[in-house]
């Protein structure tokens, strides 16, 4: 599978096809046993997840994964870890450079939260947020890393139609800002509407790849879905 920079790339397939597994492999959460994964020509297959993030790849999880005891702002600040470039000694000494970096990180965090509609809840505890806000926060945390490739695992799950439209608009904006988006989704209408390219996975094998139009009319794909379940909308 190849993902082109600046595009929105969808990964779809019947349940159990292995979509989340692909994400876990790319982000280094599970070890790769065969083949390789390259990012910008560099082999990233053996790196630990923090190193992969350092290269510019961030992700969200299917079960929204947040730091539930922290506030919304704190969650995003953790995401800014790489950009704030912390060190033990500066933190201990509370140096001016350290304080300056933290101040800038806060400003960036607030701006990011506002752009995702979370500006008003910055001080709220993450574990108490409504579902839509939690999903937005997860996205904010991934974006806070300054990643050029964000991998989103079911970003639209559990959202109302209105919220889905909001989120897809955000994704399009990201693509315009040269952030590449790779996502897994079950909502076919949304996927076909927002993605530039779609890859279809079935039983761990890529069975098709192309524009949404091509995929929708691909016989193999239809067969795979009808064999398992109707493509949901």
């Amino acid at each position, binding site marked *: 599978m190849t993902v082109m920079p600046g595009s929105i790339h969808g990964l779809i397939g019947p349940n159990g096809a292995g979509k989340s597994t692909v994400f876990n492999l790319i982000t280094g959460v599970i070890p790769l046993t065969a083949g390789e994964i390259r990012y910008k020509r560099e082999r990233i297959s053996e790196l630990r997840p923090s190193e992969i993030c350092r290269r510019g790849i961030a992700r969200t999880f299917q079960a929204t994964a947040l*730091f539930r005891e922290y506030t919304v702002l704190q969650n995003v600040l953790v995401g800014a870890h790489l950009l704030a470039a912390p060190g033990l000694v500066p933190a*201990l000494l509370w140096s001016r450079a350290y304080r300056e970096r933290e101040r800038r990180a806060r400003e960036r965090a607030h701006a990011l939260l506002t752009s995702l509609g979370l500006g008003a809840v910055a001080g709220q505890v993450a574990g108490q947020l409504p579902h839509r806000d939690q999903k937005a926060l997860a996205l904010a945390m991934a974006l806070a890393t300054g990643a050029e490739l964000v991998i989103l695992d079911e970003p639209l799950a559990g959202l109302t139609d209105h919220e889905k439209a909001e989120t897809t608009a955000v994704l399009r904006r990201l693509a315009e800002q040269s952030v590449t988006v790779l996502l897994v989704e079950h909502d076919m209408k949304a996927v076909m509407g927002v993605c530039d390219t779609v890859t279809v996975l079935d039983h761990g094998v890529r069975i098709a790849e192309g524009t949404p139009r091509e995929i929708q009319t691909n016989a193999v794909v239809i067969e795979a879905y009808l064999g398992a379940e109707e493509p949901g909308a």
Partner: protein
Amino acid sequence: MSGPAAGVALIALTAAALPLITRDSYYLDVATTILMNLTLTMSFRLQISTGQINMAHISFMGIGAYASALLVTRAGLSFWATLWIGALVAASLAVPIGSIALRVSGPYYFLITFAFSEVVRLFFNNFFEGLFGGPSGLVGIPKPGRVLGLAFDSKLALYGLMAVMCVVVVLALVRLDYSRFGLTAGAIRQADLVAETLGVNVFRYKLTAFVLGSFVAGLAGVFFAHFRQVLHSSDFGLEPMVLLVVFTVIGGTGSVWGPAVGTILMTIASELLRELHHYEILVFGAVLILTMLFAPEGLVALPSAARRLLRRRRRQATAPAGAGLAP
């Protein structure tokens, strides 16, 4: 003055005020012990903040203690040098030990550090008796020597030394806790995989906390050696380690001030109950059980737990019946 600064100031002022109230050697001893325990529990809590319960913390205290004792008695070095050397030895050993132990997490980490601590204790107790004194212990460790014209023979001077050390350590650890380091540590504790995918090298963070904590434990150990002037392997075994854990957890691990609350209260309680011998242990045990059942986040969280309880009672009283409000 900001919250954390006020807290450190409070500790510093209380420590400074004590000698003005009493010069009694018994009270100075107890106070010195409290300060030493506080140094240990604060550094232990640093490690807990990243989610690791390091049962070998006390072993690094022992390593610092024995290193300094031997360097002073055998190599003729000054306490003021061995203070740093002892702590560095502890920290250096913490690097390989921590790297090994941190390969696992949760209860496995707890158990492997416990195994390490027993190995270290048994090592000091049964091997190289000529050096470490074996089961009878190592005796004859001198008090700190003169420095800058000041003598450190008296209880008061030793108390002062420990007070300064403790305040510096508390200051450093509080600062760390309120910094990005503390933020990241808490993130690791809550969801380490998420932190890792956000770019945090979780292993390196935990190892840093481990080594830093061990360095402080080593410092406390060096002081301990020259304060008590006698070392025995049981000083660094399961019992004192368990006490450290209790002091820290009773106080509350969620806040950097928890260890302070727990250490001070429990040490005082222990002294007050000392006369009762077996009843003391019985009461202590009952206190532990009751505290953990009714104040699981520790004593330091009691005010906020009480507030939450009051808020809930008030809300129940004012909510119309059958309104079906979500909690």
